[in-house]
């Protein structure tokens, strides 16, 4: 059981600020997912919690207490490394029980723990093997087992499923959610994968270039993005953005919130455009629509539109977003919100 707090944390590498004055509270017992583009500082953040890459300034608190002077092994933190970092010269069993041995757990207890954990991650048959004889996915599971067996109060995971195949990944995703429910410990989970983030998180922390863009539950991140970056990062394909032509304001709508038809549609925002590409995804079809100089992606259940066909699209008012020239969201209570909305009618 532990909550984690970053207070005015800055991290520099060779005089370059990677994390700038970050404040973040990770709730006790929550499944928190860190997402963001490659190189935004997710791993750096995890390493600060673990104590293996300490912050340049500011403090990291565990349960309200500064942990800067506590050795990594004494923080009750376990970490699954992005590149696994399993001990290459030890067998799978030795890898898993190494931490237990260091903590002087007795032999019977150790055996019981190792066996139940390896059962849970499906490694029972491989306990005697050397890591070099395992596949990437199996190694990743060794790394998971090694972290799980220590029964930590904080679980740090750096893209732990990235090397598994789609089926195993889906399975492990469910297993991890269940594990989290069962243990009730704090999970901090890093991923590139939005689906993982959306499906697993209690709270998503979206970062870009060392700054937190938004910190909210998955629904809120999706429906109420704080700024253009969040709006475009979450959702595939990303939100369509267009220039409104007033005060540098931009508007946006998600490809999946569009009504498309060959007939004119009744909506606050409509336009008629030409289909330029068509991608059949199965249950849905993805179209690129050209309108004047810009193009928009739309996702529709209707798959009968063809390339070069002219179609009408419409978006409802609650699915339209406005962003100021600095990228921040303009909310409904903004004094000019109605003006921008009216401006869009003439787009």
């Amino acid at each position: 059981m532990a909550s984690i707090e970053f207070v005015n944390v800055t991290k520099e590498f060779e005089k370059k600020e990677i994390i700038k004055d970050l404040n973040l509270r990770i709730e006790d017992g929550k499944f928190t997912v860190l997402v963001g583009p490659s190189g935004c500082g997710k791993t750096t953040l995890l390493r600060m919690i673990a104590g293996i890459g300490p912050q340049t300034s500011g403090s990291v608190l565990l349960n309200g207490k500064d942990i800067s002077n506590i050795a990594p092994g004494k923080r009750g933190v376990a970490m699954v490394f992005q590149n696994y970092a399993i001990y290459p010269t030890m067998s799978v069993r030795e890898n898993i029980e190494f931490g237990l041995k260091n903590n002087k757990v007795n032999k019977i207890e150790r055996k019981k723990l190792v066996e139940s954990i390896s059962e849970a991650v499906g490694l029972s048959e491989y306990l005697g093997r050397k890591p070099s004889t395992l596949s990437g996915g199996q190694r990743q599971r060794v790394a998971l087992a090694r972290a799980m067996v220590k029964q930590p109060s904080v679980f740090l995971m750096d893209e732990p499923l990235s090397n598994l195949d789609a089926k195993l990944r889906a399975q492990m995703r469910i297993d991890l959610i269940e594990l989290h429910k069962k243990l009730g410990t704090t999970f901090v989970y890093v991923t590139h994968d939005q689906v993982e983030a959306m499906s697993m998180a209690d709270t998503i922390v979206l970062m870009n270039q060392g700054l937190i863009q938004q910190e909210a539950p998955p629904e809120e991140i999706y429906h109420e993005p704080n700024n253009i970056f969040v709006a475009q990062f979450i959702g595939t394909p990303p939100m369509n953005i267009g220039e409104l032509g007033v005060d540098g304001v931009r508007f946006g709508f998600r490809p999946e919130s569009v009504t498309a038809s060959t007939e004119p549609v009744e909506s606050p925002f409509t336009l008629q455009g030409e289909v330029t590409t068509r991608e059949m995804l199965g249950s849905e079809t993805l179209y690129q629509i050209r309108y004047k100089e810009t193009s928009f992606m739309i996702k529709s259940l209707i798959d009968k539109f063809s390339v070069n066909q002219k179609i009408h699209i419409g978006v409802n008012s609650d699915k339209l977003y406005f962003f100021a020239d600095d990228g921040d969201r303009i909310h409904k209570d903004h004094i000019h919100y109605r003006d921008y909305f009216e401006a869009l009618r003439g787009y």
Partner: protein
Amino acid sequence: MKNNKVWEILRPYVMIGPAMIGIFLFVIYPMIYLLYLSFFKYNLLNSAMSKYIGFSNYIQIFSREDFYKSLLNTVIYTGGVVTLTMLISLLIAVWLSKRTRMNYIVQAGIFTPHIISIVSVSLVWLWMMEPNLGFLNYVLESLGLPPSQWLQSSKTALFSIIIVSVWHGIGYYVLILVAALQGISPNIYEAAALDNTSKFRVFHRITLPLISPQMFFILIIMTIGSFKVFDTVRIMTGGGPNNATNTLVYYIYGFRTTNIGYAAATGVVLMAIIGILTIIYFWLLSRKVHYQ
């Protein structure tokens, strides 16, 4: 068509032919000739007068006191050089494995003796080890320690030669070990830190196993090299005093003009000892060496 098939079969042999000729001329032939000589009482003035004497040379080797003396010297020398070099180079390598500019400079310094000819090294140390005017005794005395006779006493001569050999070779082995240590992913150490591993256990359970292939390589290379020590002995002591530093190769060298057959037989025995030792190493240690 038929020609083609013949060529198919011959091609690999033709390809390795040049290398095989070299190996045969410079490795196999001298070895066989050495073996051949070892069965003769060889006459240097008139080789036609050489006489086949079967295993007599070998029987003689194993019944002569001075052979055992030089064998013992060689074993002590090898043991000393190998143990000291492994220990010291490991210590220095661990110390130098952090990538800082200072460490690169120190490492270059430690490597320098390796590029100096062993003859020059031996001469310099010979002079430094001179009991009355030498630098080493000067240092010992100014530290208030009793001076040593170094090369001039049968008690300390062999150890003195060991010091010189270790000093000369250590830079090379430090280089190998530093490279091995730097090749270990820092993430492994971080994982160990998170596993609450003590410093000693990190070294014993993670660092050592990971550099064991290089350690094993050094062990084999050094054992073979040390068993064949010659130059230092030749220049610094000439095998003395009182045969205290007479090693196998120097022993063989001693018979170069008097008894070629006997020298050849000793050479064969030396080869056999090194071969057996290497096999024993592999047999004992291969399970402790972790290749990835």
